């Protein structure tokens, strides 16, 4: 066979050509000096229109391209003036006045006016996409919002339908849906009455540090800094968020320095990066809380001592230290850390003897808990640990595994027995979790109130419903805080919910990168303070 040497030569020549051509390009792979390159999983983005963006990655982009009347300080996570320099509420409790900051311009150069602010909020209500409900809570509808929110000169007047706690309004105004858009520009891109919803998917019209230059779904987002940002120009001129769904790939990239920040690493990858002098890992909390809940259609779960027995039969710290290391922190109340009124204490821990004693006192014999859990590695690990510790306490657990959508369907239909779930807050105010964990106005099947987690578990919180509804109307912020603390304490001692963890996020950065803030549980990521 004489073709073999020929084939060999041809093959070698091709490979050499490819490598020769490829090598110089590959060697130049480190990130450009003026660009922040971030590797993240951004396939959750539905839209970059602030009135529509509601998923984490979308809100991250919106946070850097738009600002609101009230803002959250990236470093301290405290409320601070945004495009409004001051605000006040009248004695009637329903009329708010905001004074707009002078001299701020949109990226287009148009000045920020109270009219633009009013338009932005009206628009969000009228476009009526997923996050619009955050604004609807204040009694704003497409029909009345033009009258309820008015702006003239540098004064914006907001009327709400009930005398809510002012902190409730201020917190909600920090949400992405309340971003202020460049009314002039937006109006010119209206197509068929969509109020530029289509155009804003690929373009931005805000006051933020960056302008959206390009968005390719499942590929990447490119942001370009705008001059004249009211908080001071962004230090890095460009941001490129690359969609890298595989954590192991992100890890390779950050090790090689091809990305500056990697956001979707798993705890295993983080452990592997230990000792790497070029990479530092920063841990932060997220808003999701992990909980077990029990369907009170099963009489067993109305037994207070039985519920208590279960609370002491979970290895919270053990799981957080091992199987969920880096992914969660132990947290035992329904408001995530960072929220007004959150409780950081951890009254419960694994105590099998105590659990056994409580089980005996409860009078429940040979209990069997059917635990529905989503088919994901972390959920499975948690549920197996629970199965183990419950078993030691004398409670048998049968695991029922299903796909996310399927599990959710049963849960919403009150068909589960017990379930392991997570809940992400909808907006940065305690009412978001309080209203769903601790309120249930109508516990009947017919009510179909799937929006309330309490309803899904056939649980009537009794006096807590009224207490939670009162807390959102409490105008004194300190009193409000105490009310939520009390509700959470009662809730964790008496409800068929067991709060176990709060999400933790680990971000890997090249050691020369400073000033990146992921936003904790209440805010989205901020890029404009990053240096490298």
């Amino acid at each position, binding site marked *: *066979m*004489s*073709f*073999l040497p020929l*084939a060999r030569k041809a*093959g070698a020549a091709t490979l050499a050509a*490819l*490598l020769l*051509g*490829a*090598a*110089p*390009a*590959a*060697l*130049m*792979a480190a*990130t*450009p000096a003026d*660009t922040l*390159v971030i590797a993240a999983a951004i*396939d959750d983005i*539905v*839209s970059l229109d602030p009135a529509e963006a509601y998923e984490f990655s979308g809100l991250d982009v919106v946070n850097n391209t738009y600002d609101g009347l009230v803002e959250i300080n990236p470093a301290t996570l405290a409320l601070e003036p945004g495009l409004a320099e001051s605000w006040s509420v009248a004695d009637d409790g329903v009329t708010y006045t905001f004074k707009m900051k002078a001299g701020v311009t949109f990226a287009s150069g148009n000045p920020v006016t109270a009219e633009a602010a009013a338009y932005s909020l009206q628009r969000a209500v009228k476009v009526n996409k*997923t996050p619009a*409900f955050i604004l609807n809570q204040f009694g704003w509808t497409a029909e009345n919002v033009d009258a309820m929110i008015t702006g003239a000169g540098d004064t914006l007047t907001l009327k709400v339908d009930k005398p809510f706690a002012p902190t409730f309004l201020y917190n909600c105004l920090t949400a992405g849906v309340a971003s202020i858009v460049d009314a002039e520009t937006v109006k010119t891109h209206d197509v068929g009455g969509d109020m530029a919803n289509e155009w804003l998917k690929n373009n931005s019209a805000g006051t933020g540090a960056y302008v959206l230059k*390009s968005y*390719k*779904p*499942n*590929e*990447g987002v*490119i942001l370009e800094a705008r001059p004249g940002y009211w908080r001071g120009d962004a230090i890095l001129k*460009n941001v*490129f968020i*690359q*969609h*890298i*769904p*595989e954590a*192991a*790939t992100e890890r*390779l*990239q950050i*090790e*090689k320095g*091809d*990305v500056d920040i990697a956001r979707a690493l798993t705890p295993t990858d983080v452990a592997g990066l230990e000792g790497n002098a070029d990479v530092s890992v920063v841990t932060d909390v997220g808003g999701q809380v992990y909980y077990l809940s029990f369907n009170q259609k099963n009489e067993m779960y109305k037994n207070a001592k039985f519920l208590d027995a279960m609370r002491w039969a979970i290895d919270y710290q053990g799981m957080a230290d091992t199987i969920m290391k880096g992914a969660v922190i132990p947290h035992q109340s329904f408001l995530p850390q960072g929220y007004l009124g959150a409780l950081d204490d951890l009254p419960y821990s694994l105590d099998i003897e105590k659990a056994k004693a409580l089980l005996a006192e409860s009078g429940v014999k040979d209990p069997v808990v059917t635990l529905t859990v989503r088919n994901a590695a972390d959920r499975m690990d948690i549920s197996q640990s629970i199965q183990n510790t419950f078993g030691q306490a004398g409670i048998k657990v049968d695991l029922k595994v299903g*796909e*996310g*959508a*399927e599990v*959710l*369907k049963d849960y*919403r239909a009150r068909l589960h027995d017990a379930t392991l779930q997570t809940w992400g807050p*909808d907006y940065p105010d305690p009412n978001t979790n309080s209203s769903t964990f601790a309120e249930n106005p109508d516990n009947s099947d017919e009510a*179909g*109130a*799937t*929006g309330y987690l309490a309803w899904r578990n056939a649980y009537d919180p009794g006096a807590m419903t009224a207490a939670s509804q009162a807390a959102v109307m409490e105008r004194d912020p300190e009193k409000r805080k105490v009310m939520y603390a009390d509700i959470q304490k009662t809730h964790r001692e008496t409800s068929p919910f067991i709060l176990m963890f709060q999400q933790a996020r680990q971000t890997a950065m090249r050691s020369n990168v400073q000033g990146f803030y992921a936003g904790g549980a209440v805010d989205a990521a901020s890029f404009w303070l990053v240096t490298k």
Partner: protein
Amino acid sequence: MAPVNSAQSSDAAAQSSAALRFASQSANTLFSLFITFIGLLAVTFLISRVIPIDPVTAILGERATGEQIAALTQKLGLNDPLWKQFGIYVWDVFHGDLGQSVRTRDPVLTEIGRYFPATLELSTLGILIGVIVGIPAGVLGATKPGSWRDLFVRLVGLMGYSMPVFWLGLMGLLLFYGELGWVGGPGRLDSMYEMMIDVTVPPVTHMILIDTALAGEWDMFWNALSHIILPASLLGYLSMAYISRMTRSFMMNELGQEYITTARVKGMPERRVVWVHAMRNVAVPLITVVALSYAYLLEGAVLTETIFAWPGLGRYITDALLVADMPAVLGGTIVVGAVYIGINMLSDFLYRLADPRAR
């Protein structure tokens, strides 16, 4: 008089009957393609209705009220009888409307149009590598069966079948990108070029290698090549495993035929015997093998795409499935089905070229 006329008329008759045969064959082919396609739509449609995933909750989300759910169910026509829903669906598909993605509200066809070129580029390069390496490898094994070369080829092929593709991909990335730095990382271009490409390269085909070459942006071209070479080689390796096996098998069969012995006895150089005479006969079934491998790659290699962050069809369909975005899944399936059908047609055509008996 009679002979001339009858000769002429029989010529004309022969021509028109050949044309008629061609027309009827084509009609037959098109008809069976149509039936296959409808069958595909029926199966995917049925599956989507049988899966216990509620598209309405998927659209409206966690906070939906009972009324909203009922209203949307009615609006989406989900209360209509199945056959009616199917009819509407088929009608839409033939008008180029593959529905709207439940998640993004964008037309599914537009979204697929965004991801398909990336898959096309990757798969085409992959199959080229698979063919260029696989066929000679198979021939190598067939000409000296049982030799160390043959065993080596078969071993390498076996590894391609058996090792999990995501592991191979990660190992490849670790070695060639992580350690050696010979190839570009995940994604189609370096971040620097990703930032520039929309400005400097007009999107003619949406396949970066072609577009950058057409635009004369050679730096970007080489960079894109450095990024595509590893995932394409991975896919090529997987195809090569199959192609080399089949080539070896076909070739061994051919080389045992009498005409080969005759040719050898006549003193023909071995290279001609194998590559000209035997290969011509192996080409026909090999076309099918290559066509099937190509179609398999075109449906999107979701694991490869995940590891290399390649924005292709495989990820699109898989992600859609996991969030119960049925219009997107169905749309993707239909496109893949259409591609398969198209490739079948192409291979049929190539058959006719390669095999005179089939004309």
